[in-house]
């Protein structure tokens, strides 16, 4: 591949991302979730459903299904890795951190393996893909059953 900035696009589609996108972890409908919410990205038609089992303010199980681009699926998959076992408070703080870090309003680094998402910062039109699952997670936690969007 020729052209300037190849490293940037390779960074966006680095192997961690492609791997999560191809074989997303915890993909599938949950039987009896305590919380659930849908996320829609009107830009590209991505649509994720997040399922949570919350016990005593702790996320004891999480899964998701739906359709999306590599970025949104990978982000959802990595999110499920990250938040399983977290307290609601920890998860809420991660949601904020990921949002701020990806849309550039904070220079904080992304925690742990989420670092793989950072290439998205160079692609403002794709930030919404990366944050979709996180928006939906927030909506699921608040669980008023509404649809989360990334506007």
């Amino acid at each position, binding site marked *: *591949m020729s*052209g*300037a*900035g190849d490293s*940037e*696009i*390779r960074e*966006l*589609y680095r192997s961690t991302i*492609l791997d999560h996108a191809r074989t997303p972890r915890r993909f599938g409908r949950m039987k009896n979730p305590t919380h659930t919410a849908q996320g829609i990205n009107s*830009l*590209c*038609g*991505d*649509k994720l459903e997040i399922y949570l089992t919350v016990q005593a303010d702790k996320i004891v199980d999480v899964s998701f299904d739906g*359709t*999306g*681009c*590599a*970025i949104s699926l990978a982000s959802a998959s990595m999110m499920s890795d990250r938040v399983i076992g977290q307290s609601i408070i920890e998860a809420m703080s991660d949601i904020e951190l990921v949002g701020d870090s990806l849309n550039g309003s904070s220079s904080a680094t992304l925690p742990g393996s989420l670092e793989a998402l950072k290439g998205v910062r160079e*692609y403002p*039109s*794709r930030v919404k*893909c990366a944050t979709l699952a996180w928006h939906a997670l927030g909506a699921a936690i608040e669980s008023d059953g509404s649809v989360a969007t990334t506007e």
Partner: protein
Amino acid sequence: MLAEEQRISMADRLRADFPALHQSVNGRPLVYLDSAASAQQPSCVIDTVAEYARHDHANVHRGVHTLSHRATDAYEGARDKLAGFINANSRREVVFTSGTTEAINLVAQSFLRPKAGPGDKILITHMEHHANIVPWQLVCEQTGAELIVAPMDDSGTLDTDALYALLDERVLLVGVVHVSNALGTINPVEDIIREAHAREIPVLVDGAQGVPHKAIDVQALDCEFYAFSGHKMFGPTGTGVLYAKEALLDAMPPYQGGGDMILEVSFDKTVYNELPYKFEAGTPNISGFVGLGAAVDYLLGVGLETVSELEKDLLEYMTARLSELDGIRLIGTADNKASVQSFILGDIHSHDLGTILDHQGVAIRTGHHCAMPVMQFFDVPGTARASLALYNNRDDVDRLVSALTVAQEMFA
């Protein structure tokens, strides 16, 4: 018919007229394959708009001073050009709107809503743009009428027999897209209009993707309504046209109220203005329509025959080249097509494809193309779509194909 070299030199000449095409994006010369979403403007349009603002701007219709007179002449001159462009019988039939969307909403609210009720039906097709779906859904909600849908087949060809079978006496209007923006299908609107008229049903044609690519003659078509947008035919945004037969416009109540659409206002009684002004409330997008007039001149200068021919040739080339790619699925393979090719490449999501292509300077559209029912029909979340205009050439297509190859490698 032009010889191949003629076509090539013609396309290159035309391309020179469009400043936006001569730039680098992400370090590569831009390849713009998104004209179905919005076309670029030739210099003559951009300059006309700027010159208008520099020398001739004032409000129209109500002033006796020189600038107001010049502005009115330029604005109404654009109407004459547009009337000629679509061969309307009279300038009174050319209503200026903000775009195709507003034009269809106008028909929905002013023509249909007053006569619709439970049991009445509005017939559209499965390949409509949201602009020709949602306005009718709103009217249905408001009146209790029902929206019914004529099917298409796997190639994206409209099932006209099924459509004709749905034409009964409760159908108040047929709304049909001339050229599908998602599939490229050219619908046989002449036949549909004839069959609908045989049952005395009026027809609205969504011509958003019609006007930039072929000569339109509304009198020959004989449709009741024809709607289109300026920004898809190389004019400025915020402009559009509703063509409608005069007798229908005469009988319709106004859409919006305000200045210019009235002859006389008192608190007791208001007398509406003549056509087309009855449907143009408030200060219009004067500079936009002046620019659209210049776009008409430009298109007529090139010649719609030439445009159709150039695009047909290039579309064939593009379809052939795309077909070479491993794992490609073409969406929209009707026999009669124009200037658009949707596709899916392997299991690469269209959105990822869009980003990887953009990275190589190639601009395509990805997603649902405001035609979600089409996506539902093909059971895909979205497609990648390359669309052509008179300024595209084979080199653009080659760049598209090689960029797609790169994407395949990345996702291999």
